[in-house]
């Protein structure tokens, strides 16, 4: 008679962080942003369509109005977080050389922060009229 054998220590099981030391964070944030992206993308497409054919002044005014600007900010932040996670998985799946992988993972973070911040800046600039 012996107790069930666990290779993982009791502490490791309680922490639940696994071999990658990051637990289910990646999975959870991926699903969280996936769910958020559905209504936000539909809203962004509707906003985009209503702005078609309008002149720049009207587009700037509508995009900068509080409700629309907040929806667009949420949209940009949610898709940017989601795509950073997705691209990290693509890199980890296909790039096996350690230094190339780390370089691309860094480039992924740089790109997503840059493009996300650029879009956020664009929206805030319209809102605050700077």
């Amino acid at each position, binding site marked *: 008679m012996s107790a069930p054998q666990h290779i993982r220590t009791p502490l490791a099981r309680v922490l639940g962080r696994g071999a990658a030391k990051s637990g289910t964070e990646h999975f959870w944030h991926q*699903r969280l942003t*996936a769910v958020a*992206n559905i209504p936000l*993308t539909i809203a962004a497409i509707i906003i985009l369509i209503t702005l*078609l054919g309008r002149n720049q002044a009207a587009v700037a005014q509508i995009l900068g109005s509080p409700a629309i600007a907040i929806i667009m900010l949420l949209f*940009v932040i949610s898709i940017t977080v989601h795509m950073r996670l997705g691209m990290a998985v693509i890199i980890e799946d296909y790039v096996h050389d350690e230094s190339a992988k780390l370089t691309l993972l860094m480039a992924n973070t740089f790109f997503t922060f840059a*493009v996300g911040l*650029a879009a956020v800046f664009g929206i805030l600039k*319209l809102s605050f009229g700077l």
Partner: protein
Amino acid sequence: MMPMADTRPLEAHPRAERPLSPHLQIYRPMLTMMMSIAHRITGFANYFGTLLLAWWLIAAASPNGYARFQWFAGSWIGRLILFGYTWSVIHHMLGGIRHLIWDTGRGLGPGEREWLAAANLIGSIAITVILWIFVLLMMGGSQ
């Protein structure tokens, strides 16, 4: 006689000719497999599509900048890219909904997953075409 132990570092050993696990080229193409690949490719494309989104949002602040964006969006290559981007976003969204359904443990049966894969493809094309008919009608009415 026992063969002498190989004392070279592990990375210097000759690569063993072991069978590799089969990959894409060995399977008959199936719709569920194609939609899985399409989900990754559209996600990859949407990643770079955000450059257009950021350009549009920044361009909206100035008349000259917006004129440049409108010139691009109205050109045939611009329209082609935007049409592709629309389909890519819609397809990835429907594919994502399919994955969220699977996350609940539903829709994994043989008939259901075929149906979901077909709905993903047909739905994405139909929604994209309907959106663009609407877009072109609106653009035609205002310009």
